């Protein structure tokens, strides 16, 4: 039984229109941020959602922890149907699932000592008393490498470096002992020389606490380093999903191939032929017909503009490697 199960998940956001437009047309238009996504994550796995901005990866992450209500579809965590929980049930459930955001500075109250901020989060979600909370925060600070913990506890965010702040955010997410953590670009705003530290902390916490992660990133190299399985997202859809080794070893979707080719490699001796697709991700209000990638795809034919490809197995030896492309056999 998978720990997290997502079935045909959709989230449409209505588009704000001007008054005149509203009067003229009764039909609401929607941004289809997530448009029919199905996947599952086993307990203790790190599943990566990879995509460019506007692909729907952040919305998917938020839907899984109940921060957003889906338009349709199911999210089941540890047997619990998350969208059906009421406010109170959700609050109690929330200690079991946490989210780590991109910007540590925006995530922390500048007027609060970071230790107190983490203790508050713990007391809000559990019935720990002040003393127990402080003790557990200090333990957690030690755990994530915020040492000396006692001294860091009474500092304000402005007196911490970017890396330390992100560690505080991680400590706050983990102090309630969650089973499931959504990490939304946790290293995107951290200095380059500090990124590996944060990735290491996340990896270590995963191993020591047996956490299940949904790791959201635009950085394919980071996804490859940290995740065991990933999904490549584009305009609210999964284009390809599978084990990291399979996807990086033999990407079967033209978009995945393009993404991999586009990533700059920190090795000047590598000379790769770069097949970079034209244009940019189109508007999610009016996604292209058929395959959403077809206007940019070098392999597109008539069927691609007509029929939306579904995720399917193409390589018979790799059951978990699925791809949504009419022509995927070409790349085997």
């Amino acid at each position, binding site marked *: 039984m998978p720990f997290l199960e997502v079935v045909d998940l959709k989230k449409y956001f209505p588009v704000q229109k001007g008054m005149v437009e509203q009067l003229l047309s009764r039909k609401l238009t929607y941004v289809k941020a997530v448009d029919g996504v199905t996947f599952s994550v086993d307990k203790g796995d790190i599943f990566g959602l990879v995509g460019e901005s506007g692909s729907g990866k952040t919305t998917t992450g938020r839907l899984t922890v109940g921060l957003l209500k889906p338009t349709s579809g199911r999210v089941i965590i540890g047997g619990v149907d998350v969208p059906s929980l009421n406010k109170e049930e959700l609050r109690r459930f929330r200690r079991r699932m946490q989210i780590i955001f991109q910007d540590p500075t925006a995530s922390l109250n500048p007027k609060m000592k970071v230790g107190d901020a983490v203790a508050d989060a713990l007391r809000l979600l559990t019935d720990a008393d002040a003393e127990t909370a402080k003790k557990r925060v200090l333990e957690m600070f030690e755990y994530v490498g915020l040492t000396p913990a006692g001294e860091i506890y009474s500092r304000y965010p402005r007196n911490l470096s970017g890396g330390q702040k992100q560690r505080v955010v991680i400590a706050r997410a983990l102090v309630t002992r969650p089973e499931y953590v959504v990490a939304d670009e946790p290293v995107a705003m951290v200095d380059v020389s*500090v990124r590996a*530290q944060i*990735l*290491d902390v996340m990896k270590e916490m995963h191993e020591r606490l047996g956490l299940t992660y949904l790791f959201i990133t635009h*950085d*394919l190299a*980071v996804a490859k380093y940290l995740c065991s399985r990933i999904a490549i997202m584009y305009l609210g859809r999964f284009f390809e999903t599978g084990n990291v080794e399979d996807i990086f070893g033999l990407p079967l979707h033209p978009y995945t191939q393009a993404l991999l080719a586009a990533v*700059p490699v920190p090795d000047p001796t590598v000379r790769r032929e770069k097949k970079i697709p034209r244009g*940019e991700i189109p508007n999610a209000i009016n996604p292209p017909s058929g395959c959403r990638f077809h206007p940019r795809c070098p392999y597109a034919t008539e069927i691609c503009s007509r029929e939306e490809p579904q995720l399917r197995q193409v390589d018979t030896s790799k059951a978990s490697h699925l791809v949504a492309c009419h022509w995927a056999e070409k790349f085997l």
Partner: protein
Amino acid sequence: MNELLDVKELCVEYRTSRATIRAVKDVSFSLAKGSTLGLVGESGSGKSTLGHAIVRLVSPPGVIVRGRVSFDGIDLLSIDEDGMRKIRGKRIAMVFQDPMSSLSPVKKVGQHFVEYIREHEPSTSEAEALQRAKATFEDLGIDRSRVDDYPHQFSGGMRQRVMIGLAIALQPELIIADEPTTALDVVVEAQILELLKDLKRKYSLSMILITHNMGVVAETTDRIAVMYAGKLMEVAGTRKLFADPKNPYTRALLQSIPNILLDDQELRSIPGSPPDLANPPTGCPFHPRCPHVFDRCRVEEPKLKKVDGETETACHLFG
């Protein structure tokens, strides 16, 4: 060697009532005509300040304290503002990270070109300037007719193309590109880097590319200068820097970056964080994080010097 730009012992400080921050400390490097230099560093390393100081665009409370910037034999720090205006834009152009803040939302894109060209070349007619804008659009891979569009009608990547177009419109010899692709997604980033490379070849441009991304410099530059806490830590040919980094900071940085082509890569993280420049460490700025630190590093700041062929490094391990 045919040097287009030669920077010597350049120092820039930000002076406030509370502190003096030495953002650029005794930086010296040169750029050969037609080549691309990557200026890499983390946020706060001073790389952007250095880029701006070259064209004297350091805004207060920043002050260029001393040093020399020689461009094609002209001492840029001693000429008057009029003389500088004839060089800035015309002979040295800049491309910034955020194109939207540089374009006026109420002006057609073509109009930006017309005004920019005529500001520097008053004798050029509007019609002629617009023709040149259209020709530049072809170089950028944008349809000529789009000179009549407004900036908001362009996507992020197209806007950055327009900014690059403005930079090359006056046929400069040197382009300083400050994180030109940082705000862009990876596919668009690759498109923009390809465009820069093409234009560089076509117009024999020289370029300084300022970035925090080691992958970007690996793929686009001939030489790299690594900056940390306002100081140049290492300068070397691109291949040499990656194959045989001398400075412990460069080495640590390269070992901490995930590479998409490697399987089961082991990352080595660098302990600690970059220093607070209002309160910098004594001696070598990297010493609190350096695995090879010894007594001298804590008291004496190492100077950049040649250690191996063309490689220059600032580290006491090398004498």
